[in-house]
């Protein structure tokens, strides 16, 4: 599983990355976490509101700072 955090580097984006990291570790998932910071790449996902979270190339949430629990649920581990 590949989890991508889309954001141009604002505070909310960094917090979402930290929450995703926490969620993956807490749930013991075998997932690769990656930041997508280039604006062209973010737009290629069809995302206009950052921060966004994508799983295996599919956008699951945009424009919201998800909690670690919410991320766990999205990843199917809660």
């Amino acid at each position, binding site marked *: 599983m590949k989890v991508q955090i889309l954001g141009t580097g604002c505070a909310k984006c960094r*917090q979402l990355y930290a929450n995703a990291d926490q969620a993956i570790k807490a749930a013991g998932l075998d997932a690769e976490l990656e930041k997508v910071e280039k604006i062209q790449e973010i737009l290629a996902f069809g995302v206009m509101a950052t921060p966004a979270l994508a799983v295996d190339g599919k956008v699951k949430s945009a424009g919201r700072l998800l909690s670690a629990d919410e991320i766990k649920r999205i990843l199917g581990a809660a």
Partner: protein
Amino acid sequence: MSITRSEGCAVAPARPAWQYLGAGAAAVGAWWLLYQQLEVLAGYLTYELLGLGRETHLGSSVAFFLFEVPKVLMLLVLVVFGIGIVRSHFTPERTRRLLAGRREATGNVLAALLGVVTPFCSCSAVPLFIGFVEAGIPLGVTLSFLIAAPMVNEVALVLLFGLFGARVALLYLGTGLLIATVAGWVIGRLHMERHVEEWVYSVRIGEASGESGFMTGAERLRYAAQAARAIVGKVWPFVVAGIAVGAGIHGYAPEGLLASIMGKGAWWSVPAAVLLGVPMYSNAAGIVPVVQALIEKGAALGTALAFMMAVIALSLPEMVILRRVLKGRLIATFAAVVATGILLVGWLFNLLL
């Protein structure tokens, strides 16, 4: 940070709607009862428990502070939560669909209105701008959106309502929307499309995948609660500090102190207030209580509102972010047109009120 942790109790997915409605009605009822008692409580605390005299400077300041702080914070929680529910229905994707294919004029009005209800943070101004341009939304319409989003601010609206009443709050809302609409339209008339950075036009936007827009009722409530906690958590120190300054001026500064320099008679005070406000960067929460105190001591309402609008609508950090997609000429025009709009509104208020 506590904002990021959602409580475990809100997770259960399928609770019947009437439970939420019942809980909501009870919460609003309790809110209203407490809100009604605030002035009496503040008076009791100040004059009975602390034993301060009713006619003293200190008593007047303390009573003002103890009444205004809980009042404004309670209003803030309620309104930010309510706006959060409204915003959970509007995603940028939806707003883009609503605006695509609109002509100028009607497009400008709609964009200004959507700027108020679409969730927006200045950090996503760039992807949003490109998304709008790519959908063929005219530049002026896009800018109407980008002007309204920060200018018509729910925190400022609450504070103006709490401290000045409904009339001033509505005037602020109406003139804010008007400035955003007209400024965007004017920039559209100037045909400045070539002052957008070239790379913007070559970006291709992917099809939105996944179900990011859909939320259940419980998710909307959680979204609104998260917004209320995040915003109130961020602005309360400014509110308290602002009201403390306001309370000091309320109790100590003589009436009419500012009438000569910031009063209606001094026409130049409006441009001076705008010029002073543009480089300043503060949030609405900190600035409104100070503005209130200024007005109480004789500053004209139009001058004070122009100052506040200049501070919150035009900020240096946002200009820097927008510089990535707009060339210098367009940024300068943008700032000049919006500042002119604020100036006219300031004069209009001073003339009418």
